[in-house]
């Protein structure tokens, strides 16, 4: 009876796995659409292999030991031996984890270093300044001199340098299908390089709690063909309204706003990565 229960318990995670295969198309992390996410996906798959191996070994040993050495009426007079340990065995199960950890550490370190640089060295990366504010994302294209709120368009196959900062609490910039996240922090300038391999719409969101409406800090990353992107930039430059200081102040007010597009950027008058230290006391009227 108990034995059956135990078997059933050990099968529980597996059965859930089967159940889950139904919703795997929603698992964005496992649907990489860019080289960064792909690198991370490969690392994840590589590690999952080892982890499943460990789980299988431990679970099998566990089940065998429990079944064989449980108290049974027929071995009522059995008295377990006095054993202190076994040096050889203990060395074996110290060395095997060391090997596994090494096998995981090497690709981890490689990938961690690789992700700091663009994959495509021959293509000039596009720089986008990202400002997290309560509770919206502001994207500034310094070279194109345009600005968007809560959505960002990028060209496919071009590395994009997202330079992250915040005018409030720490947020984390995460686009699961393009790659892992990085924090956007007040007075700091962190850099996250992502790239999309194909046109498409990718969900992005803040992954670090930042207060009341944090759950709504979603944005869309729209990857376009290079031509479409150039066309979009041109259109924005020609048709979108200008962002005024006053308008920018209202955007920064705590709250949720919809999508917005402007044909200039706030970088012209304020650089949050530098000015955060001082502007609390300055009279430029920025009110968060």
């Amino acid at each position, binding site marked *: 009876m108990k034995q059956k229960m135990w078997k059933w318990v050990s099968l529980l995670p597996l059965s*859930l796995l089967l159940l889950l295969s139904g919703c795997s198309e929603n698992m964005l992390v496992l649907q990489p659409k860019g080289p960064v996410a792909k690198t991370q996906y490969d690392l994840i798959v590589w590690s999952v292999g080892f982890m499943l191996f460990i789980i299988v070994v431990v679970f099998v040993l566990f089940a065998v030991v429990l079944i064989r050495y449980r108290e049974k009426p027929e071995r009522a007079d059995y008295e377990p031996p006095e054993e202190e340990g076994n040096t050889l065995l203990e060395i074996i199960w110290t060395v095997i984890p060391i090997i596994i*950890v090494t096998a995981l550490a090497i690709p981890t370190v490689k990938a961690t270093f690789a992700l700091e640089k663009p994959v495509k060295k021959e293509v000039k990366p596009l720089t986008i300044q990202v400002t997290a504010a309560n509770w919206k994302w502001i994207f500034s294209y310094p070279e194109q001199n345009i600005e968007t709120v809560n959505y960002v368009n990028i060209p496919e196959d071009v590395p994009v340098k997202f330079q992250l900062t915040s005018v409030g609490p*720490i947020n984390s910039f995460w686009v699961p299908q393009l790659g892992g996240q990085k924090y956007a922090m007040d007075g700091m300038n962190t850099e996250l390089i992502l790239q999309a391999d194909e046109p498409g719409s990718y969900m992005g969101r803040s992954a670090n709690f930042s207060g009341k409406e944090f759950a709504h800090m979603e944005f869309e990353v729209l990857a376009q063909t290079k031509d479409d992107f150039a066309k979009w930039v041109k259109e924005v430059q020609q048709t979108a309204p200008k962002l005024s200081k006053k308008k920018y102040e209202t955007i920064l007010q705590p709250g949720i706003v919809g999508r917005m597009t402007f044909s200039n950027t706030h970088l012209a008058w304020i650089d949050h990565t530098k000015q955060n230290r001082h502007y609390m006391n300055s009279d430029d009227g920025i009110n968060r």
Partner: protein
Amino acid sequence: MKWNEFFVTGQPLIYAADVSIVLTVIGIVFILTYFKKWKWLWNEWLTTVDHKKIGVMYIISAVLMLFRGGVDALLMRAQLTAPNMKFLDSQHYNEIFTTHGTIMILFMAMPFIIGLMNIVVPLQIGARDVAYPYLNALSFWLFFVGAMLFNIAFVIGGSPDAGWTAYFPLAGNEFSPGVGNNYYAVALQISGIGTLMTGINFLVTILKMRAPGMTLMRMPMFTWTILITCVLIIFAFPVLTVALALMTFDRLFDTQFFTMANGGMSMLWANLFWIWGHPEVYIVILPSFGIFSEIVSTFARKRLFGYKAMVYSIVGIAFLSFIVWVHHFFTMGAGAAVNSFFSITTMAIAIPTGVKIFNWLFTLRKGKIRFTTAMLWSLAFIPNFVIGGVTGVMLAMAAADYQYHNSYFLIAHFHYVLIAGTVFACFAGLHYWYPKMFGHLLNERLGKWTFWLFMIGFNICFFPMYFLGLMGMTRRMYTYSAGLGWTPLNVVATVGAVLMGIGFIVLCYNIYYSARYGERDMTGDPWDGRTLEWATSSPVAHYNFAVIPEVTDLDAYWRMKKAGKGFEIDEEKLKPIHMPSNSGRPFLISIAFFFAGFGLVFKWFTLAIIAALFIVLGLILRSFDDDDGYYISVDEIKRTERLTGKGA
């Protein structure tokens, strides 16, 4: 300040809580008065310096806090069951996950572990009390008033809402102007001081008060883990003390340590928090390893396999726990070299932990395994903790962590290690040592019901969260939209949480049922135990051991039983036993701490200063206290020993 700023208003749930708090207080006062128990309460509990009673009070508080934290958890699960739920608004949800995390770690897991160690460690080392019994009482009461101060926040003034990590600048005045985070800073500070003193107390107790013959390498594994945990507490908690003090200054006196302006650095808070926070999780997990070691060894009827390796691996884990804190924010952009370093140190923890897992498995091998409730919890720990452990290694891989960080993958991971590690250990330890506390056993049948409900519910609740994380669901979201495909797994998780809740109710019923009908433990050794606590009577006599036992090897009591005599007390050798006197001062000082803390929370500095003067007065009175205890006469010891059947 208007009354509706002082009391939290506008929420039906809060009003219900108000009513139930008032009714509970009236009920308690009525019962104490009606049964004339005030004096009993004061003499037996409020003024006690007995480590066993203090331990019991720790555990009762922990179970209460488990209830509070569990209700928080169920409210969160209710809100997340379906997309766009309107059950809780974002502010309320934010408060609930903040209090859930803080309470479960600091006011549930810690005191549960500290309660068990209070009860067990002196017994395991053959001591009559801890090194500083008075300090021990003060530790408990400081923890208790800290917990109470934190808990009243939700009806008076408002709960903290910046997460249990309280990251700045969010937790600063600018973004959290209410008193909620003042509660966080002050309440944690008060109970943290208590914990720090516990660490010092038990370090000294274990190093100085072991029975003759008990060398360090003959100590029971639980005592070993507590010794190392004390070292962790002594090194880690001062960091929290300092960080919380700076936070308090920032919030109350407008200093700028972590703010966005004037050179404040919010990342400094995150670093300080986790320099304490990572050792902290080992402070609750290492004693759990100790509890499992004791129970596995007892119910396999075998000596712990690879005792020395077990000791070395605890030391290794404890050392590593101080050099991994950056893995909590690989995404802060510290650079590839820094992240790689912390990645490797973190993964390295898997090595000593793996050694422990295999040593437990090999303790079971060739054993004679009895499936008691305590053993079921301990056995279930192994597979569940391995799932939590391997996903921990996955999170440790910096480049991959960028995809897991702050997602439900992380939530699943740390609940797998903290519940399957610490909570299972608390329940296992509770069932195992229950006769030592109360003289009767917990009902096994109900215990097994709790186990299966809770353990299966736990897996149903948290396993799907790994996948929710991979789907992009992040922690601390109070709602989500329907199109994301997260609904089915969230429904499953809620079902699991409900099962866990039912398991908890069965546990509470079991405590009541066993008190009335439970099997009395007449032998003092119901499990055929191996260590010295089983040589005492159940419940344990006030002075623990009439004669201090002599230890010749590991599993001292097992040796005595194997030698055929058990633990015999030679009445000729009895001497009067010196015991510390009760004192009401730790309790009163802690009350003063409560009011000082409350004054600070609301910036009522007059109240804070007056209460602080009472604290100082308490310290002065203690300094001139020349009560150095009393003696229990030989006659009285003989009487007690004959009564419990342990004497000759």
